[in-house]
């Protein structure tokens, strides 16, 4: 009996199914109609129809950030593929595993400026981990398998697979073969840290008098939060997280000293500036952390652990580099500490903590509510209380993002989902939808503002179609808050294009999309109305909170200064 054969389109779906993909986020179009036809005829892989391809990428991204699985996107050639570009870049900057299957015009038309033709592999080249031009039917399963392997191994990232229509059509069939174990001679990411470097790292850490553990998104991606916490406890070290690393250690842990960087806590930035040893774990000394690199922690020995060698000594020179998977290296460090029978130097440790607690006592993350307009920070605190700190918080980009990072402590990894690297407005809602799809029984919040929410608001329609009752909390300040804050601070208050004049009636808009809309404008109603919003389980609730438009995010690093040169409030320096 002859072996069974399949069309290219069927192979795409069969490969996804073989790779345990549950959801594909996408939008149909001419070049991928055969794949849509194949999806229609099976049950293993569900397709989620968005309203704009950018949202498909963010939804896949949010799904991936919450679950750790590869997010999968399907888009047609031309505009479908180019609409994915922002989402691919977002995933790339935050190292999120994603596979984007993009249609392409038939091979014989490539290069002819055919209808809906763009070179998506070329367009996306600087923002992908890798990409494939699939050119034959037989290659489809293994190209997709390779794409998945590359997307999730090593430092994760997005992979684009271009599929021309002529290899998908029903007229051509072939046998289906997929390799379970991918091996590539040119790609073999490091796993373990070099033992010599591990010993050096442990020597530096154990001799430190003022150690700071600085951890980033790498800890979250590697599911190494428990190991990080164990290490921090053993060393009794202060631990700070980057914006991407929040939840790496519980936000309520006694050793957690807050986020660092531009809008980090005073104690975190002070601790960094005064440390004698910095243990950086899965963080990349991004410019929003370091402030002026020339003034960055000049007296510290820097131990830098990262899976990606290019992240090491890119902006800040590492004295002890360790390349390896964060979870594996953390285990190596813990083992080495155990073998050394390490005990913290109690005197040094306690005087270091005494110093840190002094900085802490200045309560740099604080605000005054008063009787008047609702402060945005107050809204975040209320949503923390109502959800017991257990919600998935998916953020857009701007002031609300920083307030959420500062005032909602995350006790678990993958709870805090935001576009940290690229800073993509419009990320929050679709990301929250992806999370809600994965965890329908959890509270999933989209924290946003009147600017960001309008960058992908069409997805309210997708939410209705797939019953995705996320809670949207919009801190509505009638302006582009972060832009306005910079204009206040740097441009003498010239508010060039930072107002959102003619805002829609968000309550009516939510209702028009078939959801519940609630507006809050009175401080006295804030808690009760928020509670009401969270008590509605089966419908999406859009909470439009009118907040004080004059509020700035503090603390804030002073431009061109050292890591701990900060504004604590309007005109107040640390």
């Amino acid at each position, binding site marked *: 009996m002859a072996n069974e054969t399949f069309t290219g389109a069927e192979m795409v779906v069969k490969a996804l199914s073989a790779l345990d993909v549950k959801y594909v986020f996408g939008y149909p179009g001419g070049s991928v109609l055969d794949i849509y036809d194949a999806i229609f005829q099976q049950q293993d892989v569900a397709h989620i129809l968005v309203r704009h391809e950018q949202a498909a990428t963010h939804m896949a991204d949010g799904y991936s950030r919450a679950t750790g699985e590869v997010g999968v996107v399907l888009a047609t050639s031309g505009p479908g593929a180019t609409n994915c570009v922002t989402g691919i870049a977002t995933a790339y900057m935050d190292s999120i595993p994603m596979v984007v299957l993009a249609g392409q015009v038939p091979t014989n038309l490539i290069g002819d400026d055919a209808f809906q033709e763009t070179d998506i*592999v070329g367009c996306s080249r600087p923002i992908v981990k*890798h*990409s494939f031009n699939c050119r034959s039917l037989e290659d489809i399963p293994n190209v997709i398998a390779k794409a998945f392997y590359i997307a999730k191994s090593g430092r994760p990232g997005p992979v684009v697979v271009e599929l021309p229509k002529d290899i998908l059509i029903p007229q051509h069939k072939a046998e289906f073969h997929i390799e379970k174990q991918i091996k590539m*001679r*040119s790609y073999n990411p490091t796993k373990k840290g070099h033992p010599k470097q591990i010993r050096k790292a442990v020597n530096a850490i154990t001799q430190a008098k003022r150690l700071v553990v600085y951890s980033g998104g790498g800890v979250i991606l590697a599911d190494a939060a428990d190991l990080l916490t164990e290490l921090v406890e053993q060393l009794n070290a202060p631990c700070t997280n980057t914006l991407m690393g929040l939840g790496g250690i519980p936000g309520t842990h006694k050793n957690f000293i807050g986020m660092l960087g531009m809008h980090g806590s005073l104690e975190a930035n002070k601790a960094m500036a005064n440390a004698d040893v910095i243990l950086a774990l899965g963080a990349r000394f991004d410019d929003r952390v370091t402030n002026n690199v020339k003034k960055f922690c000049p007296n510290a020995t820097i131990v830098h652990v990262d899976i990606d*060698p*290019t992240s090491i*000594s890119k902006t800040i020179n590492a004295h002890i580099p360790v390349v390896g998977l964060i979870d594996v290296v953390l285990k190596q460090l813990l083992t080495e500490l155990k073998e050394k029978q390490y005990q913290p130097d109690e005197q040094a440790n306690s005087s270091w903590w005494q110093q840190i607690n002094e900085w802490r006592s200045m309560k740099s993350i604080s605000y005054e509510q008063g009787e008047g307009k609702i402060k945005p920070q107050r809204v975040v605190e209320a949503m923390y209380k109502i959800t017991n700190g257990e919600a998935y918080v998916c953020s857009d980009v701007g002031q609300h993002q920083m307030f959420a990072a500062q005032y909602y402590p995350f006790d678990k990894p993958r709870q805090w989902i935001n576009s940290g690297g690229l800073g993509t407005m419009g990320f929050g809602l679709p990301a929250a939808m992806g999370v809600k799809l994965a965890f329908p029984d959890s509270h999933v919040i989209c924290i946003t503002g009147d600017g960001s929410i309008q960058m992908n608001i069409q997805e309210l329609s997708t939410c209705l179609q797939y019953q995705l009752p996320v809670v949207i909390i919009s801190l509505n300040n009638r302006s582009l808050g972060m832009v306005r804050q910079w204009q206040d601070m740097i441009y003498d208050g010239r508010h060039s294009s930072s107002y959102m004049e003619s805002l829609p009636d968000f309550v009516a808009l939510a209702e028009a999309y078939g959801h519940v809309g609630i507006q809050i404008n009175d401080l006295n109603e804030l808690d009760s109305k928020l509670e009401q919003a969270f008590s509605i389980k089966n419908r999406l609730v859009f909470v439009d909170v009118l907040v004080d438009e004059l509020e700035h995010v503090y603390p804030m690093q002073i431009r061109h200064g050292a890591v701990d040169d900060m504004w604590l409030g309007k005109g107040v320096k640390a």
Partner: protein
Amino acid sequence: MRRILSILLENEPGSLSRIVGLFSQRAFNIESLTVAPTEDNSLSRITIATSGDDRVLEQIVKQVNKLIDVIKITDLTERDHVEREIILIKVLAMNDKARTEIKRITDIFRGSIVDIGKQVYTVELTGNAEKINAFIKTLAYETEIIESVRSGSVGIARGEKALRI
């Protein structure tokens, strides 16, 4: 400082564009770049002449290595190596004096005249970049250069060291 990098990579469509794209994306310099398949047709070898301080070079090497198609990269400048480039240069050869001088200079540099027109000579010369620069300069004293084409440097390590799978 000038550096010569040797890269061994998969001979796949688009792999060259990833290298070139990386250099422009990260604002690294390319002085010259040559590429061709190796004796194993599934592999390509690229030689890039670039410049930068130690820090920039470390990033270049790491970033290139990170590309999925790249198998190996080495900085030839760090060790003994042979570097060669070829130039084809067309010069005016209007009279006996010019012709004699061109022939003489070509012989001194151990090049060869590969084509003769009514009033032009085309000369081929192989050497490292410095030698070729000197050759061009010397010719320019004696006659007019009509056009020239350089291959860009190729390089290989001396001795047992090799860039292979």
